[in-house]
Structure formats: C-alpha cells, structure tokens
C-alpha cells in the first residue's frame, strides 16, 4: 500500500536533485558516444590511416598515435569495452554480493559467521597483486575473463553493505507481519524486503560499476588486460610505451584518463544524489 506514494515521492525529488541530474547526464553522454561513436567513425581502432603523431585536426578529432592510428576511433571503441567491463564486472560483483550479503543477513547464525569470514578474507587480500599473479601466466585473456576477475574481488564491498541493510530490514514490523500471516519466506523476500532494498541495490551497483572501470583501467595500464581489442587503459599503456608524454602527444593520453575520471566521478556524484533522494535525512544538508 505504501508503494505508489513512495515512488511518486522518489521521482519528485529525483527531478529536483542537481547532483543526480548532472551525474546521469554526463554518464549518458558517454554511453551515447560509446554506442554511436563506432558507427560514425569509418576506421577500425588498429587501422593505419594517417602519418603518425598528428595533433587533433578537423579530420582526426583526437589526432593520431605514433603509428598513425586514429585516436578518436580507439577512444570510442575503448569506451565500449570500458562500459562492458563496468557492466559485467560490476553487475556480477553486485550479484555475488547480493547473494552472499543477503544470505548472511537473513539467515544469521552459522551461515552469517562463515560468510563473514569469507568476506573478510577476500577483503584483506590486495586484489591487484593476486590478479597480477594469475593474469601474468595466462596465454590469452579476454574481456569477459577480466570482468569476472574484477567481480571476484570486488563483491565483498557489496556484500557487507547488503548484509547490513538486510539485518535492519529483517526485524521490521511488516516483515514480522508477513511471517505471522503465514507467507512463505521466498514470498516475503520478494514482496516485502526486496522493494525496500531496491534503492540500496541500485546504489551498490553504481559503486561496483565505477570501481570495476577503475580496476580494469589499472590492469590494462599495467599490460594485464585483454590481449585483443581496445580499451581506455590500453590506450594509456600504449601512450606510455610510445613516449607520448615525452613527445608532447597530449591528445593520446589525456582523453582516456579524462573520460574515466568523468564517468566514474559522475557515477559517484549520481550515487550521492540518489542517496539524498532515497534518504530523507540527507536532504536537509
């Protein structure tokens, strides 16, 4: 019964929250660029289209690399794989986090103890280091592989948050009412608890998404990203290897990092905005 009013309330505040609007707008812009970009550019990322090391011009908006590849083409294709990793890696991480966090929070007891221990173990290990050990030995690495990897190390953050939220919701009145009235546990989860957690899950996913993008960029930069394809981190890796900094080829290394900063920063700000929308207490600030 409380749902329709709550939804209207949320939408009302969403439309008025500056942070949310700006954040979403920027991310949306980049998504459009990632979708449309590869269609409007007539080259492939690794095509040799011009003399190397050309600064931005009307023909090559982002200039060319040392080899003569179009930086803009690499940029838009890189955006695609960046968003893909964020989606798959972040999504998978959230999913695992939900599973583990929810089970721990709802069942409590032994399940909670064991899952908590597992969470802490994965939390403590410096993920990049283990990723290095494993990725360094693989002959061929793909985008999906990278996403799964990142998810396997980022889920603890989601799990912890969801577990805490589940704990607090579990003891609420309407849940007890549901149990008293004989509803099956699964039904309770889906009809009573989940809708109240939706907002929280969304926030968690956004954070995972942003985190996955950053981790992937670092991995690609070190050279342990996918062995095929293009990504923003790989562009920065290539720029460094080919002395772009030294040779003043700013158009090669500034766009990729700027894009990541803009996308992830906007995601974080969107998160804050959403938090304010869902959490009345924060709105006053």
């Amino acid at each position: 019964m409380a749902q329709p009013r709550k939804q209207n309330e949320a939408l009302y505040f969403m439309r008025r929250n500056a942070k949310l609007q700006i954040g979403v707008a920027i991310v949306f812009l980049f998504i459009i660029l990632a979708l449309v970009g590869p269609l409007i550019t007539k080259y492939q990322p690794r095509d040799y289209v011009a003399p190397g090391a050309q600064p931005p011009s009307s023909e090559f908006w982002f200039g060319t690399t040392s080899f003569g590849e179009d930086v803009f083409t690499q940029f838009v294709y890189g955006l695609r794989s960046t968003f893909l990793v964020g989606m798959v890696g972040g999504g998978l991480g959230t999913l695992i986090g939900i599973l583990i966090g929810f089970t721990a929070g709802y069942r409590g007891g032994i399940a909670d103890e064991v899952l908590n221990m597992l969470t802490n173990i994965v939390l403590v290990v410096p993920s990049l280091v283990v990723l290095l050990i494993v990725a360094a030995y693989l002959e061929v690495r793909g985008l999906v592989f990278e996403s799964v990897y990142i998810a396997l190390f980022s889920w603890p953050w989601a799990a912890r948050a969801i577990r805490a939220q589940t704990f607090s919701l579990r003891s609420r009145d309407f849940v007890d009412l549901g149990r008293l009235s004989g509803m099956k546990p699964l039904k309770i989860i889906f009809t009573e608890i989940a809708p109240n957690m939706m907002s929280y899950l969304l926030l968690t996913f956004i954070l995972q998404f942003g985190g996955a993008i950053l981790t992937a960029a670092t991995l690609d930069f070190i050279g342990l990203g996918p062995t095929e394809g293009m990504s923003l981190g790989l562009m920065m890796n290539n720029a460094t290897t080919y002395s772009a900094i030294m040779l003043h080829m700013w158009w090669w290394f500034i766009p990729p990092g700027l894009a990541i900063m803009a996308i992830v920063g906007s995601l974080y700000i969107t998160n804050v905005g959403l938090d304010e929308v869902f959490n009345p207490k924060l709105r006053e600030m």
Partner: protein
Amino acid sequence: MRRVVSILLVLALLTGVLGVTSVAAAATTEFPRSQTLYTGGKQWGPPSNWNPFMTGNYATGTIGLCYETLFLYDPLTAKFTPWLASSGKWTNSTTYRLVLRPGLTWSDGKALTVDDVKFTIELGKKTTLNFSSLWSWLTSITKVNSTTLDFKFKTALYQEWDNYLYNLPIVPQHIWGTKSLTDVATGANDKPVGSGAYLYNTYDQTKMVWEKNVNWWATKALKLSVAPKYIIDLVNTSNENSLGLVLQGQEDLNNNYLPGISTLLTGGYALHTYYPSAPYNIAANTAWLDINLQKKPMSDLAFRKALAYGINVADIVSRDYNNMVQASDPTGLLPMWNKYVDQAVVKKLGITYNPAKAKQVLAAAGYKDVNHDGYVENKDGTKIALKLIVPNGWSDWMAAAQMISKSAKTVGIKIVASYPDFNGYLDARLKGTFDLAIDNQANVSNSPWTYYHFIFYDQLKDIPTTQGGNYGRYNNKTAFALVTQLDKTKTTDLAAMKAVISKLQTIQLTDLPMIPLWYNGMWAQMSTTYWTNWPSSVAGKNHNLPVTWNGYWNMTAILMLTQLKAVKQP
C-alpha cells in the same frame, strides 16, 4: 592522534632514507658530467652479476670493458684485429697456433699469460659453461712456450672456432682457480678483476659504474686510450624514460629501439645516428617468419610459396618502423654478407611481394574459396585459419603481425595475429605447437654459417632444450650435411664457402622452410651534447659499432670509446 601520526611519519622518513643510503657506500658519490659517458639500452634490470660466462645475466660491459677476448672482429670489414692475442693461424688441418701478446696485465697488476688462457678454456671442461660444447671437438691445449699455445682438434670446425676467438673472455687463473666450480658456473663474481680498459667502480639499482683503467695494456701496446673517465650504464626502466634521457642529453648513447627517432633527428635535439638517413642503423639480425611444416597446409610447398608472395614487407618497413629497418632480401642474409649471396640463384628462385602471383599459385595448387568467405580452404575442404604468434607487449612486432594478417587477407589466406605472453610464445615455438611465428634469433656474427645452422638446425628432437633454430622442423639431410661441410670450410677459402652457401641457398629458396622478413637494426641513438666524434657511415669518420649489447664491445665498440671527444662546455 596528531602525535602518533607525526611519530609514524618521522619513523617512515628515517627508515626510508636510511634504507636508501644503506646500499654499499661508494668511494665516489658524484660523477663529473664532462668526464662521464652515459649509456643505456642493454640492461633491463639492476646489475646483479659480473660472471662473463653467464651470457644474458652479466652487467653491461662485463665482457668488453672488464674482461677481454683474444681478437676483435669487425663485421663491416670482416676483419679480425689481434687483441689479447698477437696472432693466430692453422699450422695444419687440425692444429691452431695462438701467439699471445707480451706485456699484458690484469687490473690488479699481475701478468696475463698463456697460462690464464689455457686455464680459462679448460674451465669449460671442468664444469658446464656457455662454451663447454667446444670440448666435444677440441682435444687438448698445449703450451709450446711462454707466449704460444697449440690447440689440437678432433675435427676442425673453422667457422665456429673463429666465433670463439672474439667471444671467449679470458679470466685470471690466480682468482678463478680458488673458486669452487659452482661459483665459476653460477656465481655472481662481484668486484670483477679483468684486463680491460675499465675497472669496476660501483653500482646501484639504477646503474653500473665503470672507471677508466689507467694501466690498460693497450695504451702502450696499441697507443689506444679511452676518452671517458667513467662509463655509467643506466638500467632501462622503459622506452619512454630512455627517450626522455636522450633528448635531454642525460644519456649519451642509447641502444633501445626508440620509435619516433627518425622524426626527432630534425628536431634540434643534438641527436646522431650511424646513417644520417634511413635506415639510420646498421642491420643486426633478421626477423624471420617461422612456419610449422608439421601442420597442414604449411607442409605443402605451394602454400608456403603463396604465403611468401603474399606478405607485404614494404608496408611493415615504412608504416610500422618508419623506415628504421630494411626489407630483407630473399635469402635473409644480412647486408654485410652480400658477397655470399648467389645473385643468380636469387634471380631464378627468389620470391618477393606479388599478390597476383600468390593467388595464381594458390589456385594452381588446388586451394579454392569454397564457401565464399574471402579465404581459401584446404584441399579437403576444411577451413584454414593460421595463428601468427608474437610476444605480448612487443608492440612493433604486434603491429607487424597485424600487417601480415592484412596483406595475407588480400590474397585469400586467413592469418590471425595473436599475442600470447612471452613464455607461451616461447613454449609454442620450442615445442612446435605454433602455426606461424616471428623470431629474430639469428644475429650478426663472423660467418653466415651461424645463419644456416639456425635455418637448418639438425637436432630436431633437442629443439625444446637447445633452442637451436629450425622451429618449423624442416628435415633435409642434404641441407644438414652441407651446413656441417660449411663449418669445416676454411674461413680464408672464400670460393669454397660461396660454393657451399650457393647450394644451401638453392635448397632454402626452393623449399622455403622459413621466410625472411626484414632486418632489425643495431638501434643506436647518440647525443652530441657532451661527446662527439661518434661512429658514422660518413667517409672519414670512424666506422665502429656504437652498440653496448652483449658481444658488441669485442666487435669494435670498444674502439669507439677511443675515438670519442669531449665537447667543451660553456
């Protein structure tokens, strides 16, 4: 809170600074720029080893600046210069007589005599060193008198023996005689004592410092004096870092492959290369396309021919390397061995890029595009998709692999460029599980025999452990026999060498066991800010090799140091 943090901070700073400065206290702590030559490009990690028998591990200059060899070899003129030796010749078909120069000294003052030479080479018999296989055809070393040694052989392999003459480092018996055999074979040998122009000074994580040996024997005997007082070889951290150092004049000689150098030469950075224009550097080794002959359709000669016709090497040379390399000739022999190329054979059998011919050959051999996907299929209808492997991270090769894939596409052959990690790449080549690979193992040497030994390496079963070459497993007993015959041909008998090589080239160009692509250069960028009179192809300048890589000091790079002149600083 504030106090705890400040204490932690101070502790950290102290630990840090103490830890950094606790590295071996050096006598000299600052090196005057005008007397120092900064080099880089060979050392890919902190100096950790000065054992001249551990090729691939020892610090830059261990052989060349510290330890020396019997002769120097100049690949550009194909001449040997007596160095520690004063002369050497074959007195009969199986005996080589070596005469040592008198008056040689070690840097600790003791005399360098034939006993040291005999001792050094016999070390290879006592334990496993990088030249131990010499003893499978060397029988004994006899001391004839205080300056002469006789080397008696079971079989005389003239071409290989010459190779040892300018590569074997001579070590002092009075120091190495006291080491355990394990130490000899795998010890780090720090604070090395050699006979060369430079002394070990110090090292740290980022550099190796050599100091001029004022008592060097060659100053009196050959009137040679090295110009720089200090040679500091900087550890490579990355190509970009090296480029920065060279442009700013903080590195005088760099031997990395630095893309973009061709455009920078005109940028006012006081840069110099051996050739003032393309290809800028002397050719150092050949990049080959290894073809796995054990797999279909590579086992079919017609297919290999079509592949050779279908690769556009000119594109790789101009786009990938900006003309810093040269396209190889069909035999794959380096330009310095042009005299061994049988032009008649090359004219008749040599293959160069010709896409129309490639399609013709494929069609005539029965390869058709049955499913109209743009690529031909095998004669039995199965798809052809060949994987071309290069190590991940070797960007210029990765780009080259892409280009090969593209040019093969235009003639209908599907090649997929793949970039496994180095160990995966190496393993596939060694175990023979690859389809196609690029490799550049064959390097400049005193004799084209090394090249044919690589192309026609005969111990097929041993390839995984010896890495001798012939990764495609080409099996031709005639060719193997010819290679051995070449090894046994005297180095002075040019006509006989040419005759054998001509036969080998005929076999190579007929059967195409591997396809030569381009010549990689002896990458060398020099800064003229602090030092000048660098080696140059220009007439009147010295034609020494400006390279600090292993094995190059004794191929005249040491002479480059004697020609350098310091630039007067304002």
